[in-house]
């Protein structure tokens, strides 16, 4: 059985339908890229999977690890191994990165029936994963994302992912706003976390990220539907022809 099985998913925001029947099946170990023009529903799909309540699911089902995902609270989804790297990471003044990560990791461990990680082990883990993301340790004591540059915020997302070790990672436009050096660091971090036990959904507008995070499958989303699926070469094809051809496909469908 697939790790994630999305069937005929419809979702709306404020009465406007954004997702109009998504079907997608993802197995452990796979990296799926979801591409598409602005407004096609890429980010909506990511948000719906992570449990953002701004979106109403009006039809369809999502089965994750054999469970009804749509019935689960956002925190339970995270505890069951879903992680979304935010397109716009939220600043939380007054809460240190370190405290936040510890609270998150221990909440997930508790759900798994594990005891809290002791302070020394936690710090060792955090430092190791920070090195992976080439992040300065001073960021640990700063408030979550507060005053971080755009690049630091995105790196912080992948760093959190590295600490929390999800089963299904959803990267929502993690490349947006990154210069090439930051992009390489982020991609290296993501690649280091690829494993046969972990699946990833990489949502992106541009093919550029996929030069560094090479996907197993590419899906093109347009007007709330997956209009084309293929291997990594589909991304290159899109790079050359743009989304124009895709929009024609949708129009003639």
């Amino acid at each position, binding site marked *: 059985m697939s790790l994630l099985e999305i069937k005929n998913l419809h979702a709306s925001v404020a009465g406007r339908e954004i997702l109009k029947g998504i079907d997608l099946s993802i197995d452990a170990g796979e990296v799926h890229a979801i591409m598409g023009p602005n407004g096609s529903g890429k980010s909506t799909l990511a948000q719906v999977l*992570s*449990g*953002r*309540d701004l979106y109403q699911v009006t039809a369809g089902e999502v089965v994750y690890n054999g469970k009804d995902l749509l019935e689960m*609270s*956002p*925190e339970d*989804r*995270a*505890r069951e191994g879903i*992680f*979304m790297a*935010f397109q716009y*990471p*939220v*600043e*939380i*003044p*007054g*809460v240190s990165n370190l405290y*936040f990560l510890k*609270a*998150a*990791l221990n*909440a*997930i461990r508790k*759900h798994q029936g594990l005891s809290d990680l002791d302070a020394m082990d936690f710090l060792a883990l955090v430092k190791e994963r920070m090195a992976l993301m080439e992040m300065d340790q001073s960021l640990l004591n700063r*408030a*979550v994302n507060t005053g971080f540059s755009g690049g630091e915020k995105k790196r912080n997302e992948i760093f*959190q992912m590295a600490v*929390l070790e999800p089963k299904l990672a959803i990267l929502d436009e993690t490349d947006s706003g990154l210069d090439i050096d930051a992009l390489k660091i982020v991609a290296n971090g993501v690649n280091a976390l690829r494993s046969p036990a972990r699946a990833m959904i990489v949502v992106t507008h541009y093919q550029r990220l996929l030069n560094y995070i090479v996907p197993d499958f590419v899906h093109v989303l347009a007007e709330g539907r997956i209009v084309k699926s293929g291997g990594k070469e589909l991304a290159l094809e899109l790079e050359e022809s743009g989304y124009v051809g895709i929009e024609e496909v949708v129009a003639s469908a």
Partner: protein
Amino acid sequence: MTAAPTSFLERIREDAKQRFSALGYPTTHDEDWRFTNVAPIARAKFEGRTGLPACPAELPPGVEISKLTEAPPDLLEAHLARYASFQNNAFVALNTANFHDGLFIRIAKGAVIEDPIELVFESSANGHPTIAHPRTLILAGPDSQATIIESYTGNGGHYFTNAVTEIVAGDHSVIDHYKLQTESAHAFHVATMQVQLGRDTNFRSHSLSFGGALVRNDVNAVLSQGCECTLNGLYLVAGEQHIDNHTTIDHAKPHAASHELYKGILAGRSSAVFNGKILVRKDAQKTDAKQTNKNLVLSEDAVINTKPELQILADDVRCTHGATIGQLDTEAIFYLQSRGIGLADARNLLIFAFARDIVDRIKVASLREQLEQILLEKLHGSRN
């Protein structure tokens, strides 16, 4: 004991008694009491109560604590009731007329007192509504340094604490004052702290208010030349609690700075008032005053009234003020949830974060820990 202090005390008591008779309890028609209705206090029948607060058994060199009635008569006459005026404040008049005894604290010139001096005022109702009028006079000598904690607490029932504290900070002194108010749920608490700051003093007040059904704190400071005065406040109210914080910073002389930050958290059907008055007198050029009041409102039924009151008579000053009223950031809650942190924990984390900068300014580690514990318990309880 000589007769002199008794007669001085008798005299001010009589004056205050007459003044209270003339003033009566304030009503919501009084501008200073517009949002705080003290009718429940005026209506209640209290029985008298005596008793002095608990204070440290052993005092470091340089600190002297005695009963007010046993204080040096000349100092008493020179300072007691000279700062906290009972002319326009009925509760100060009531306290002055009725305090049974109080504490006199003197910090010697040049003394540096490392450990905080903690005064614990504990009330008990004993089945009948009781009333207490704690009265404290603190004289800090020139060049002295000390930390004072006033802790007001109770063990249940209906009672009324009506406190007045006068602090006289000598030139160049450095004084940290903490007031921790954790009165019982049905208690009334009205308190005035009047601070007279000498030249180049550094005074920091931290007003931490959590308990009581009906609470009013007045903190008034008069600044001399070169003073630095910081007023911090944190209040957390839930259920039907009402809290009113009135502050007055009187910039009487030039080159003084005042920083004021009061933060409030309101849950349930609670209500809060913040009124921050800054007076910059004509002489007080180069004044630098900053006032901020931030409120976090956790329920739709809670009410906050916040008002800056600036009177600026000098022309070369910098005065800023700002007030905010906000709710928990739903994006931040979702972000925390998306990392596995439960909804209730996520909310509490953000509420703590809101209070963080006030908590971080508390230099007494034991008090900081106590405060975190109080916040935790109160947040836990307020969700019911």
